[in-house]
């Protein structure tokens, strides 16, 4: 828990299409696994805004981002 609150970023692998928009928008949060799908490598609260943009840009709505207030 930081002053930015607790951020939880998740990728639904059943929905992920491997378009990799998230990795291009938030490269410090998402990485592409050997399966060609996106995986969260970092739950850093400072990345919240970029993670939200990545979620909005995801063509299959596979990314969820939530933040609890500190």
């Amino acid at each position, binding site marked *: 828990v930081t002053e930015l609150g607790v951020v939880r970023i998740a990728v639904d692998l059943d929905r992920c299409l491997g*378009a*990799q*928009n998230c990795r291009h928008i938030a490269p410090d949060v998402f990485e592409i696994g050997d399966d*060609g799908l996106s995986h969260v490598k970092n739950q850093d609260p400072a990345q919240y805004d970029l993670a939200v943009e990545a979620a909005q*840009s995801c*063509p299959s709505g596979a990314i969820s981002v939530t933040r609890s207030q500190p």
Partner: protein
Amino acid sequence: MTFEFDPFDPQYWENPYPYYVEMRHHYPVFKKENDAKRVWPHYWMISRAQDVNDALFDWKTFSSATGTLIDTDASLLPETMFHMDPPRHDQLRSILSRVLTPSRIANLEPVVRKQAQELADAFKARGTADVVTEFARSIPTMTMCTLMNLPWGEHEKFLTWNLATLGGADFTSPEALQAWGEMDAYWKGLVVERRKERTDDLVSMILHAQVEGEDLTNEEISGFCGLLHDASQNTTINMICNAIISLGRYPDQQRKLRDDPGLWSTTALEELLRFESPVQGLARSTTCDVTVSDVTIPAGDQVLLLYGSANHDETVFENPDVLDIERPVKTHWTFGHGIHYCLGNAVARLETRVSLQVLLETIPMWDIDNAGIERGQLVPTRGVNAAPISFEPVKG
């Protein structure tokens, strides 16, 4: 009888789906000789959803570097990420991913709505319309002009270029090459102009983007302009037209959508996209010998990934050849999958939804004149050159 299917032969254009069924069941990797033999003597059609999907995820084996159009010399076409593999593809794609933001796309909605409304108002009292020329053809060009801040006065030129290069059977014909050349000169001029005066459009944003600390060259930026132009028009025109045709052929579904417009935010749009994919197939070439559904494709051959067939694969969709706007479509291959997944998908979805909504709100139930439909292509796009509809004229 020997099975035959040729996506470049007009006799298969109106209804390719029975041939896709035959291929998925009996010839999932179907070898086809190229009549023109411009580059490759033959290619292989991949029709099962699982195989199409696997190929799209395996870009190392199924490369885009020699182009994504069948039997076409990609070195004659402008250099864009459409015809690239990682790492360069990823560097360029990340630029466009970052500038084509959700808010920029959302801002297009009133533009599309206004344009579609004006077009529909112009024919509503007549009771008939060709939705290709009187409706769908102007909408993606308008959207592109807005995104790139291009003069609307030149929209006919943009559309003509797009159809001359990508709308026919030979993408490197003398006419096509001339249009590619004219476009290239236009984009280069535009880049020089935008360097002088920056506006808040995609071209200006790309102009100031960097790859690993390096500025992009004028060539690379004009390549982006070409990509935005090439990928955005013919595809989306056909997306809108095919959706109008589908709803004309399934009046019960059209009625359902009129009664419950809420279906737009749940299932209707994705089902319309699945049912008649505006991009029916794109090509890759193999970088090594690879076995797909027990057939070994040698290295260096071209394959055609049939998205239109994957979207009708009975192992994925129940009753795939029936339009059901309440079908919960979990995935489809209309925009591809994997690293080349259509970057403009959200723009295309918005244009299709809004233009269809406007049409449904402006005119009553329409019929499609099936005999009057003219098809111009099957791959890459499910091209429609004419689609006459009729309806009860709207007074006032």
